[in-house]
């Protein structure tokens, strides 16, 4: 596996997975699972729901590999997970349930996955404060705006990849992203005191 990291060849792995190699697909999963999970989390606002959606997305992706016709595999994968999340959100609207975020400050203590044991305490605290402020602001954005800003600014996708991941035109991505940034700026302005000093607007 260490050799595959050094000689990362996404297209070869995708081809092998399309031929039925689960090991090759698992290599792709290990490479993209953090991004897939984070997108799912920002769409769902619920770690457990994001967990389920991520697993379902990978299983669905393996089943749909024969339909992948090239391009950005990451964008294709993120589109699967975003669609799964939107479907799940629609089901949630029919039968709402309590989100993890509804517990507020219990978040950090209750979820050990959020704590980075390798970080220094002060830096870790600033990172935690920043993430919490951003997540609160992101949660207030419209779904498509939130997806656009997460895809481009957080996950680092290009406009084209984001357009592919969202299944929309390039111009739509640009406009959604611009609006999302403007809304985020306004929301963060309201929470200046909660932001780390160096990130205050």
């Amino acid at each position, binding site marked *: 596996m260490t050799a595959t990291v050094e000689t990362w060849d996404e297209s070869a792995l995708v081809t092998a997975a399309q031929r039925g190699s*689960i090991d090759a*697909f*698992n290599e792709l*999963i*290990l490479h993209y*699972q*953090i*991004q*897939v*999970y*984070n997108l799912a*989390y920002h769409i769902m606002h619920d*770690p457990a729901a994001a*967990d389920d959606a*991520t*697993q*379902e997305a*990978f*299983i*669905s992706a*393996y*089943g749909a590999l024969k339909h992948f016709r090239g391009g950005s595999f990451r964008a294709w994968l993120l589109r699967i997970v975003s669609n799964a999340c939107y479907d799940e959100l629609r089901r949630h609207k029919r039968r709402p349930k309590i989100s993890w975020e509804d517990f507020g400050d219990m978040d950090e203590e209750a979820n050990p*996955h*959020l704590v*980075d044991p390798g970080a220094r305490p002060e830096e870790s605290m600033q*990172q935690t404060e*920043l*993430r919490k402020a*951003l997540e609160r602001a992101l949660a207030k954005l419209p779904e498509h705006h939130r997806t656009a*800003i*997460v895809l*481009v*600014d*957080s996950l*680092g996708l290009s*406009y084209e990849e984001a357009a592919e991941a969202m299944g929309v035109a390039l111009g739509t991505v*640009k*406009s959604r*992203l*611009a*609006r999302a*940034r*403007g809304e*985020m*700026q306004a929301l*963060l302005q309201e929470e200046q005191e909660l*932001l780390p000093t160096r*990130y205050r*607007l």
Partner: protein
Amino acid sequence: MRQRAPNAVEISAYVDGTLSPRDVTAFESRMAEDAALRQRVDETRQVVAMMRAMPMRETPRNYLITPSMVTQARPSPAPRRVPLFAMRLATSLVALAFVVTSGLTLLQSGMTPRMAMAPSEAPQEALVEEFAASTVEVEAEVAALEAPAPAEDEMTLKAAEAEATPLAQGTLTPEEELALAPMPAEGEATGMGGGGEEIVEAPAEPAEESGVGGGPEEEADAAARSAPRTETPETEAPAAPEAEAPAEEAAIAVTEIADTEGAMAVAEAEQGIAEEAQPLAAMPPSPDGEINAEEEAPGGVAALDVADDKASARTLETQDAESGEMAREFRALSRPTARWAIGLGVATALLAAITLWMSRHRRG
């Protein structure tokens, strides 16, 4: 000419570096003149910086897939449709079978209520018929009790004459005379069952002692032989040797009592047997029951038997006719129902088997 103010999309594109070189030049010249635009660009850059600085969440686990997960996750919906359709069809057929059977049953009950009950309550109906038949028999026996009265009288007179003759001739001893009259006691014994064991024991002693269980003549002989040892007759018939006429009357009375009680005892015994729904002929002859009564009062019992036979024959004929007619009607009505029910049951079972096989086949 004054340029228009850049919108949010152009600011975002400028921050991302996606504007064309010519647009970047124009944007920067505009920004140099517009402080508000510069501030908006700075704020957008800050938001992007924060978003890029936002730490990623760690995944709670690895999402590696296994072959079993893949096979579970890829159930094609097409194979499900056929078993589902078959199951729906089977369910519909079962419901249809239920409705048809219920409807036919209701139709039958509407036409002939007794017929509708026949299949499910045949044993009960048989018992009811047996009870009715036995009731008819008992009625016939009661009628027979009244009908052979002259014969009984004749027999009684004959018996009285036969008994009175030796009395009148004075050839019989009181013990012999009394030995001739165990009939009332035996009649009671046959009719009352266990109601009078003392009465049964007392007159039976002479017969037992003589070793003969026979009729009055034999008993009389035996009693004559064992006269000194007989004790009970002395108390039962002390006035026997007084005079001819009283003796004759007493003999007639005793015989009449014997006849009446014997016949009553037979009627009661038969009624009891009929109530238990057991055929009279199937009963084993009791040693001290009907046989003794017949021996003691052959004329009355014979008349009873004749009446019994006739009544039984009439009852059986009526029963046969009714049951035959009912059976024919029932068969005529139940045949289509049975065929329908069997056919639908077989079809349902076949469909269920096909469904089960298909579901297992698809799963496998």
